[in-house]
Structures are given as structure tokens and as C-alpha cells.
């Protein structure tokens, strides 16, 4: 469960301050597939950063599974991200010196888990995204779609209940993008909460709920193709 209560996020201070997100309240139920759409500069990525405990709100409260992000220390937020949230980025961001399996295992290794079992689990995750045979390959030996699948496997490594994806198909062709979306929908079916940011209306419609942002505010909240209904203001 992710809850935002009157959340604002400003950058800078004084008269030059810019409000990227302004007085947003939103509640995201577990197991939902929420897509966030909006024009460039509408505040959707800042919203994702707040939901992912990357940023603290300037005002208001962000609750992730009852943990108030604004009250957590830097290290506690790191642990929260590591254990409860998985991130998928537009540019994959795999480490070039690590193999696909090592990249997938990275969050667990950062958590101090031992190498052998984490690599075993990474291999299993790679198999689940169709890359079992590529686990010893390095990123420069993989295609864009394969790299994004490795990134999804990495996001699932710690078995987090929340998955946040920022334009995960933005750097891929449409066929590969569709595969990635299927994987994310699979995660929803596995009872994970998925929040996906996109500027593509067609992709947005694949969510159970579509949140539209403009000028830092939520200006629309509607049911998607497979959704149940709006929840926020």
C-alpha cells in the first residue's frame, strides 16, 4: 500500500523555488497496476521518486506500507528500497563488468547475502524472464530488450511487493516493449503493486488505473482497460 497525503515537493528555495509536485493525495492498493501519464515537466517522475523513497516530501506524508518516508533516515530509506521496492529504468542501468546473473543478484549482494545462493536465485529469475541461457553474458553482449528483461529480474530479486518503472519501454522498439509490458503485468498477477510512468497513452491504458498529471497536480484519475475505478483526488 502506497499512500500520499497532501504531498508537495519543491526544488530550490525562495522566489526561485519550483513546485514539481503540488498537494497530491493518492492511495495505491496492493496488487494494482497504476500508470501515470502527463506531459514532460508535469511532475510524474518526481511523483515516482516520492513513491520510491528516493525523495522526501517537502510537505505532506508519503507512507509506504505504513512507513513514513519523511521520518526515515537515509540508511533506513536505502533498506526500504532494497527490500520493498523494485526499480526499472528507461536506460536499463546494468553494470558493464558484471554478468547478467551478477547484475540481477546485485541488490541481494548489497544486502549482504552470500554469493552462491543469490546467484542461484538470479539464474532462476533470468529463466523466468526468458534469459536462462544468457546468465553469464555481460550487458554489452545483450540486446536492448534483453537488458531490460535483466533489469526487471534485478527489480524482482528481493521479491519486493512494489515495482516502480520509469518509461521502461521508452528505449525499445514496440515489439520488445510489448514483451516488457507483459512481464510487468505478470508481476501484477503475482500480487505486486506496479506503478509505471509513461507518456504513451496506449501503454497507459494497459493499467488498471490511469493517473494523469499536469503542472505538478493530479488532474485525472480513471480506470484503465482492466481497472476497477479511481481512488484519489
Amino acid at each position, binding site marked *: 500500500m502506497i499512500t500520499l497525503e497532501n504531498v508537495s515537493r519543491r526544488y530550490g528555495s525562495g522566489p526561485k523555488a519550483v513546485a514539481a509536485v503540488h498537494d497530491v493525495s493518492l492511495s495505491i492498493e496492493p496488487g494494482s497496476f497504476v500508470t501515470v501519464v502527463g506531459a514532460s515537466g508535469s511532475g510524474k*517522475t*518526481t511523483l*515516482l*521518486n516520492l513513491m*520510491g523513497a*528516493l*525523495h522526501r516530501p517537502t510537505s505532506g506524508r508519503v507512507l509506504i506500507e505504513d512507513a513514513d518516508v519523511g521520518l526515515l533516515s*537515509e*540508511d533506513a530509506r*536505502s*533498506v526500504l*528500497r*532494497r*527490500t520493498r521496492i*523494485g*526499480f526499472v*529504468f*528507461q*536506460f536499463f*542501468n546494468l*553494470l*558493464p*563488468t*558484471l554478468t547478467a546473473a551478477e547484475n540481477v543478484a*546485485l*541488490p541481494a*549482494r*548489497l*544486502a*549482504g547475502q552470500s554469493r552462491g545462493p543469490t546467484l542461484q536465485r538470479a539464474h532462476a529469475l533470468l529463466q523466468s524472464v526468458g534469459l536462462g541461457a544468457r546468465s553469464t553474458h555481460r550487458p554489452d553482449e545483450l540486446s536492448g530488450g534483453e537488458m531490460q528483461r535483466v533489469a526487471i529480474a*534485478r*527489480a524482482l530479486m*528481493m521479491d519486493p511487493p512494489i515495482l*516502480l518503472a*520509469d*518509461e521502461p519501454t521508452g528505449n525499445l522498439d514496440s515489439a520488445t516493449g510489448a514483451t516488457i509490458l507483459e512481464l510487468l503485468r505478470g508481476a501484477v498477477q503475482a500480487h505486486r503493486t506496479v506503478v509505471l*510512468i509513461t507518456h504513451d497513452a496506449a501503454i497507459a491504458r494497459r493499467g488498471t488505473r490511469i493517473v494523469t498529471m499536469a503542472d505538478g497536480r493530479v488532474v485525472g484519475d480513471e480506470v484503465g482497460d482492466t481497472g476497477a475505478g479511481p481512488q484519489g483526488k
Partner: protein
Amino acid sequence: MLSLLREISLRHWLRTPLRSLLVVLGITLGIALYVATEAAAGSMTAAFGEFVARVSGRADLTIEAGGPGVPGELLSSVADTKGVAHAACSVELTAQAPELHTSLLVMGVDFLGDLHFLPFAVQEGDRTVIQDPLAFVNDPTALLVSRSFATRHHLGQGGRVQLLTTDGPKDFFIRGVLEDSGAAASFGGQVAVMFIDAAQVSFARGMFVDRIDVAGAPGADLDDLQARLQKLVGGGVRVERSARLGTRLRSLSEPLAAALWVSGFLALLVGGFLVYNAVGVAVAQRRREVGVLRALGVTRRGTVALFCAEAALLALPGTFLGLLLGQRLSIYSTATTLDALDRLYASVPQAVPHLTPVLILQSIATGLLMAVLAAYLPARRAASVDPAIVIRGAASVEATAPPARRLLVIGLSLMLLAWLPVMRGSRFGGALAITLTVLGAAFSTPAAVIGLRALLVRPVEALLGVPGRLGLDYVQRTLGRSTVNVLALMVAVGMSVSVGGWLASLERSITSWAAQVGVADLAVTQGSMVMDRRHVPFSAAAAERVEHVRGIAGIERFRMVDQQVKGTTFRLVATDTDTFMREAELRGGGWRVVEGEPLRKGDLSTHPSIVLSENAARLLHVKVGQSITLTSPKGEVAFPVRAVIVDYTSESGAGFIDRRHYAELWGDDVVDGIFAFVAKGADIDAAAEAIQVELGGHGAVSTVFVTKTQALQQHIVQTLRQTFSYSRAVEIMTLLIALMGVVGTMAAAVIDRKREINMLRAIGATPGQVARAIIVEAGFLGFCAAVAGIAVGMIECQIFLGTLLAAQTGWHLDFVLPVAAAARTGALVVATSALAGAFPAWRAVRSEIGATSVDE
């Protein structure tokens, strides 16, 4: 271009003050060391120039000799030689004035002989310098001093100046003041003139003089005259063109000058590395900006010019600050250099270095050139940016890595070439071998970094977790930039280990030799604790008085003079060999013979024979059983070589003969130093005190040194370290510059990997883990440099000892592995490198993360 500089570059450098500071500091330190080195070298040249002008004056030829000097009686036959217009004897020495806490140049001049070479005008304006010439030459205490000396010490006509003479401190009285011009202005104005006979008596010259100056008659063929005079004076005395004197002195001081030059060059090189790094960082950070500029029509050449112009712009304040710092530093470098020169080669005064306009211009040009050259490669990298790719936001981590394997093959080949036999045995070969080693190491560095990473990755990951592994990976991923950094640090570490190694070898050899031959209890000298150029010899009578001091069982007298054999000057040491061998046998010590039979009492005293140091035997190409011919005032005498021993008395070699034969053949009974053996059961301290009292050196201003031999050994080691203190200071500064490079590299690394760092933070890496990865990366850079630098330094040290030092001095020192020094330097470099990564690491983790910045 100017508008781009003003509107883009200047703003950028102002926004990144740390990096701007690094460039300025790199140039500041490089230029400061360059200025200090050049100033010291300039002072050395000026000192030699003044010395040569003073010594040669109006003379066409000078006649000099080793040993106690040139027999004064030669003057009349020289003066009578056809083609000689003028000839005059002179004595010249540096004397200490203990009460005034200074030293001054004393010139002994023959006022009754040919006045052609008189170093001042007898009549200065309407003033006569010497009021009563007859009284002056008849007064052994009469002195003329320069006006600046008199003014500085508030002395006037009749004033008293105490000088340290062979018979201890003695009072002299001022009988005239010389205007500060010509010879009187030399030696920093610290000049005194006395009658030559008085100088000979006061400074135990006997019937010898330091040189005879000769002026040829108009139209005389100087080559012919030189040859005829050489024939007249014989082999032991040297007749040479006055101008040659400077060349000879310069060649003697070549190693010192070379060391200065190398230090300055290396400092500039490492300063250049720092600029390279800082501009590299700027290029990394501004790739997008460069991409935009390129897309807007700035050409590749324009981009290169922009970055080079930025570096040149930053070089200006760096050069200015470097000049200021260099001026302060040059006081130290000049003092150290001139002190070494005065102690080793010729009477030169201390001088305050001045930054000449030429040096200032040279420094500005060097600073600008260094900055532009160092900026050129990163600038080219910036120009090669594909605007389309960068604007789309591709990663900026370097795409291509140096071909490590190919470079390793080249590097190893170069290092192997350094060990070819042809590189041995000559100075040129040695210098080439060291250059090949450093170049070889430079080429091998990328492979070394890869190899060390492979070796360490598992243990580091086990110890420090994934962040440790990522830190090592980062170094390999940016191999090009890492290599440059490792190289800069490697040069600094190599220099430190190499100098430390050969100093340790020299110290070990000298201390073990000193312990072996220093069997006496006390060393007695005057004017200086050791028998260097500053010491003042004792008269034979003074030595005799020491022998009869209560508690003294015996003494060994030392006389050290230069001798020419086969055109090579070496140190002839006349000593009481029987006393030495008797005491050595009793106390367990003595000469370590490396060739010939063990030596016993009577071996050198019964018949004239000589024992040679290893380096003398090598430099003179003689073996045991052969003879060398020494030239004494009584003619040439063949001395059979009895043995070759380990000895470090002189870098030009030493030969030991018995004092009895020396006194007979050379007619010289002066004593440079005395080793005293304390009687069994007598108190050493009481004996030392008694010697002080006996020689009149006891009191507020003591000029007699009575030193326990162990303290003497420590003093020798201390002096040795002091001689190289400037080199050590340069090493530390070079290391500092290189370490600042690590800060620059790490700053670049953080900028390059901003997205990756943010990704790590997003997937749950704590700030501490990210910081650990960056610090491990910086520490690993230092580790690679330490390993490579220690290896290169040790190889350099071995080549230096085996080739350069052997060719220069004939000494063969045992290589002492400088384990402690290497470990200390290595640990320091690793620790400070890691520390240098701390600031960029702090900056990396304190910046806010976000999905956008991950994808930017």
C-alpha cells in the same frame, strides 16, 4: 573563441572551484619546483663564474698541484721562462671567524713580488689602501678587509678579527679597507687579504702556495708556453688554461646539476599529469555541452583550442603563484646547493637567489606550455565527441580502453633492453637503462592494473563486500584515465623508493665501513667535525700535544691531499699505519681487504707502499703487485700496491701510505685530523675534555671538535641525509601533486558514473556502500601505483648503484632493499589515495538521487 571563453569556459571554471584550484595548484607546484631548481642551478653557475673570474683574473695560465700545494720555489724558474710576462704566487682559503659567526675568503698575496695580479688597486682614488707597505708585510697579523665586511661587523682601521688558524683562533688587525669592487666584491663581500708569508704561516702552508698565476708576453703562443711550463714543473703539478678551470669544476659538479634538473623535470611532469586530470574531468562533465557546441557548428579544432585556451588561462594565476612560492623555495634550494658546492668543490659564498627577468619569462612560458600540452589530449577527446550521441544522453564513461596486452609486450621488451650488458659500465648506458625501465613500466601499467584487479577481486569482495568489488571494477573500466593517474603516482613513488634505496645502501656501506676502520675512541678536528673543505688543519706541534694528553695511549694522525695519477685526481691519505694496525688488531677492526694479503703492522711503514680503495684501483686501473707513481717535491716515487680495501673516504678514490714516508718525501708535517686512542681504564669523557683544554678550543667559542667515533659516524650519516634533503623535499612535493591528481580523477569518476551511482542508490545501496566503492577505487589506484612504483624504484636503484654510481665514483655498494622505506611510502600512498577519494565520495552520496537522474 574569446566570447566562448568568457561566456562558457569562465563560468564553468568558476562554478567548479575545486577543479579550478587543482589545475592552478598543479601548475603552481610544478612551476615553484622549476623555479627553485633553476635558481639553484643559476646560483651554482654564478658561483662558479665568480670563482673562475676571481681565481683566473688576468692570468692566462694557472699552475696548481695536488698534495700540500705548489712549491713556492718554482716561482722564480716559472717567471724566468721565455714567453712569461708576469708570474705570482697566491694562497686562497675560506677561514672561519668564530667570534663573528661567519666565514670569509682569505687571499694571501705577494706584495713584494709581481703586482700584476693584485686583486685590488693599491691606490683607490686619492686614497692609499696600505699606509705603510713595509710595516704591512712585516706584520703577520695585518689584514685588509672589504668595506662591506667592515661595515657589516662595525670594524674600522685597527679593528680586531679573530680567525681560526692551524694553531687555533688567532687575532688579526685591520690595516686597510678595500672598496667593494673586483675581487673584494666576490664571496658576498666577505673578503680579507693578507701577505702571502703570513697566510702560509697561519694556515700551515709551509713553503707551498695554492697556485702560481702566469700571464703570457704579448704575442706568446699560449699552447707552447703551457707545454714548456708543464715540462718545467713536472708531472705532479698541473699547468692549465685559466678558462679550463671553470669547465673542470662544472664537470665535477655535473651529478649535482643533473640531480637538480631531473628533480625539476619530474615535478613539471607530475604537475602536467594534474592538469591533464583536471581538464579530463572538465571534458567528462561537459560532454553534453561540447555536443551542443559541436551541433551548433563549433569545429573539432575549435573545441581543442577552447579547452587548451582554458588550461592556459588557468595557468596564468598558477604560474604567478608558482613564481612566488618558487622564490621562497629557491632560498632553500640555493642554500643547500651552494653549501654542498662549498663543502665539496670550491670556496663559494652563500647567496640570496634572485628571480631574473629571463627566469620569470621562462617560467611563464613553461607554465603555459605545460598547461596546453597537458590539456591537449583530453581536449582532443572532447573534440571527438559525436554530438548526436551525446545530446541523446549516452553514458560518458570512456568507450575504448588501451590495448593492454600489446602495450605489455612493448613494455616488457623495453625493460628487458635495460638489462642488456651494453647498458652497463657507462653513465650514458645507466641513464638510458633507467629511462627504458620507466618507459617500460609506463607501457606495462594498463596490464598491471588488470592483473592486480584480477588478483585482488575475490579477497577484496570477501572483505569489503560488493562495493569493494565495484571499486576495483571501476578502475579497470576507466583504464585510460586510471593509467595516467597510476603513472603519475608511480613516478613519484619510484623516485622516492629509488633515492631511499640508494641512500640506505650508501648509509649501510658507510656505517659498516666507519665502524670497521673507526677503531679509535676520539676524533679531533678543527673548524669542522669532519675533514671536509671547511676544516682547518693542525700543526705538527698541536698533534704532538694531543699525544701527551693524560689518558691518551696513542694517536693516529691524518693528512689528506689530492694527487694526480695518470691524469686522474685521487685522495692521498698519509696516516700512522703502525698505530692504526696495532690498535685495530687489539680492538677488532681494521681495513677490509678485498684483494691482496691481510695487512699487518710494518707492511706500509717499512718500505714505501700503498693501499688503495676499491674505487681508486678501478679508476686508476691498477692491481695488487703493480705500482703507481706519485709525484712528490723530491721527484717521482713508485709505490707498490700492497692491497685493495673497502673504503669510502672519497668518491674519486683514496690511497693510504705511511705518514713517515709522506713527511720525508713531501716535506709536509701538517695534520688534518687526529684519531686518539684512550688508555685502558681511562675515562673517555675526561680525555676528551683534556684534549679540548690542551688545544685551547675550550671556551665560549669552541673551534676544536673532540668527538666520540660513534657520534662521528652518526654525524656522517646525518650530513649525507642533509645533502639530499632538497631531493627529499622535491619527492614529497611531487607525491603531493600526484595525490591531488587522484582527487581530480575521483571527481571525474563520480561525474562519469552519476547515473550508475544513482541506480545503486535506487536499488538499495546505502550511502556508506557507495562511498566505500569510490574510496576502494581511489585506494586501488594508489595500490597499483605503489606496487609499480616500488618495483620500478628498486630496479632504478639497482641500475643506479651498479652503473651510474659505479661509473661516477668506482664504488660498488651492496644493494640494500629499502623495505621499511618502501613499505612506508606504499602504505602512505594507498592511505592518502583512499583519503583523496573521500571528498568525491562524500559529494557523490550527498547529492539527491532520483529516477530522472538515473536516466539522465
